[in-house]
Structure formats: structure tokens, C-alpha cells
């Protein structure tokens, strides 16, 4: 359930987009300042390319500026911006990202993440390090990177995450659970790969 601060943030975004749609450039500037970090982060993680990420960031807010009057308000402004950014990133996407990932059982993902293994604590240690998280995220399939960024990094609600990804809530939850397990598995494997040298 969203807390009061989340609700106040969402209402402030709605006020800003309404004023921006009426031509208030300062309101649009305030909206940009509130969301540019998150949009840039999503774009960076989805494209894995600094120049492409900057293009996506700019294209997203240009589209938002042009389309402010068309914001329907049936989701949050944040999820609307993320959806625009995701489509922009898709246009910049590499062909390799379009390759579907082979399905993997939850059992196999759980085992890879360290279920019943003595080294599962390496995941806990790696999750404390920004560089390790970024390295592991970059290895995940693009759809799993997106759901992790929206739900876990940016803290969107389940409904807003599903809306931004154009998924049903159960489908989003399933993807999120698998993505978390795959990220844990990647951190565990990379922990083994990065044994400190003396």
C-alpha cells in the first residue's frame, strides 16, 4: 500500500503535468528535475550505452513536453514517463536484446541463487556494492532489467510497474520474482569470479 509521502509525490506530479500542459514551463522544469535521475538510470540500464541513454533521456522528456496535454491520468505520471522511456530505449535497443531468453524453472533459478548452498552469503555481501549490482544487472535480459529498475530501484508500486511495462499485475510479479532470483544468481556467480588477488 502506498504511504502518505508516495501519495503526496504522485499528486504533486499531477499538478505539475497539468500546469505544464497549460504552458507553464517552470512546472515542466520541476517535473524534469524530479524524474530525470530515474529516467536516466532506466535508460542506462536498458541500453547499456551512455550516448544512447542520453538520447533516450532527451527523447523521453521531449515527448512528455509535447504530450503533456494528452496525459490521461489513469496511472501515475512516473509510470507514464517510464513507459515513454522504455519505448524510446527499445528503439535504441541492440538486436541481441531482442533474442528471447530460454525459459528456466523456478527450481533451477532458486538453486542458482544459492538455495541450500553454503556460499549464499556472497549474494548478501555483493548486494551492498553498487558496482557489483550494476555489473550483475547488465547481464540480465532486458525485460528483467526493466522490472527491477522500476519496482526495486525506483520504488514504483506494483500497479504502476505493471502499467509502465504494459503487463498484468500477476505477469509483472512473476517476472519480478524471476528477475530477483536471476540477479541473486548472477551476483553469486560473479562473487566467485571476483576473488581478490593478493
Amino acid at each position: 500500500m502506498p504511504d502518505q509521502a508516495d501519495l503526496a509525490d504522485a499528486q504533486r506530479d499531477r499538478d505539475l503535468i497539468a500546469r505544464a500542459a497549460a504552458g507553464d514551463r517552470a512546472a515542466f522544469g520541476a517535473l524534469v528535475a524530479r524524474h530525470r535521475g530515474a529516467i536516466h538510470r532506466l535508460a542506462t540500464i536498458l541500453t547499456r550505452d551512455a550516448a544512447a541513454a542520453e538520447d533516450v533521456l532527451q527523447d523521453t522528456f521531449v515527448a512528455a513536453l509535447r504530450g503533456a496535454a494528452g496525459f490521461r491520468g489513469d496511472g501515475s505520471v512516473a509510470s507514464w514517463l517510464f513507459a515513454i522511456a522504455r519505448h524510446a530505449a527499445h528503439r535504441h535497443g541492440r538486436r541481441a536484446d531482442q533474442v528471447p531468453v530460454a525459459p528456466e524453472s523456478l527450481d533451477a533459478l532458486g538453486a542458482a541463487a544459492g538455495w541450500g548452498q553454503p556460499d549464499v552469503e556472497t549474494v548478501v555481501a555483493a548486494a551492498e556494492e553498487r558496482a557489483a549490482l550494476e555489473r550483475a544487472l547488465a547481464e540480465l535480459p532486458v525485460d528483467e532489467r526493466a522490472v527491477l529498475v522500476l519496482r526495486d530501484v525506483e520504488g514504483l508500486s506494483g500497479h504502476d510497474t505493471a502499467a509502465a511495462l504494459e503487463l498484468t499485475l500477476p505477469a509483472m510479479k512473476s517476472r519480478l520474482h524471476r528477475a530477483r532470483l536471476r540477479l541473486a544468481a548472477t551476483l553469486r556467480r560473479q562473487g566467485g569470479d571476483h576473488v581478490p588477488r593478493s
Partner: protein
Amino acid sequence: MSLDRELAGLTCRQVLDRLGDYLDGDLAPAARAAVETHLRGCDACARLGGAVGAVVGGLRQRLGGDAPADVAARLSERLAREAGEA
């Protein structure tokens, strides 16, 4: 060790399946209590739950922040051009 092991009315496989909803607080009270009872008695599930919880916490705490200043400045310039052309 097998995911078929049952404790508190749940197998380890069922706990693994519900771990995401458990971490997000999306389970009904009775289902949550069952998972917690299982976790108290099952080291493998508890440690995996701790690891996945640490991943979620790490993502929330370590990857935030604003866009770099030069990126933000170029974005402002582009938007000023767009607004001027509108």
C-alpha cells in the same frame, strides 16, 4: 537436500514460489504466517530469503541519485530549444 521437504504445511518449493510476494508484503496474514514458520525452521529457505531480500534492499539503497550534471545540463538545453520551437 530437496525442495520437496515440507515444514509448517509448505514445501520449500512453495516457499520459493511465494518468496516475492512475501518480501513485498503481498501475502494474506495466514499465508505470511505459514511462510514465516517455515523460514524459522528451514535454514536453506531462510538464507535464500535473506539473500534475495538483500538484493532488493541493495537495489533500493545503492542505485539512486540524480542524472550527472553535464547530462542534466544538455537535457535542459534540448528542452529549451523544443519549447522555443513550439
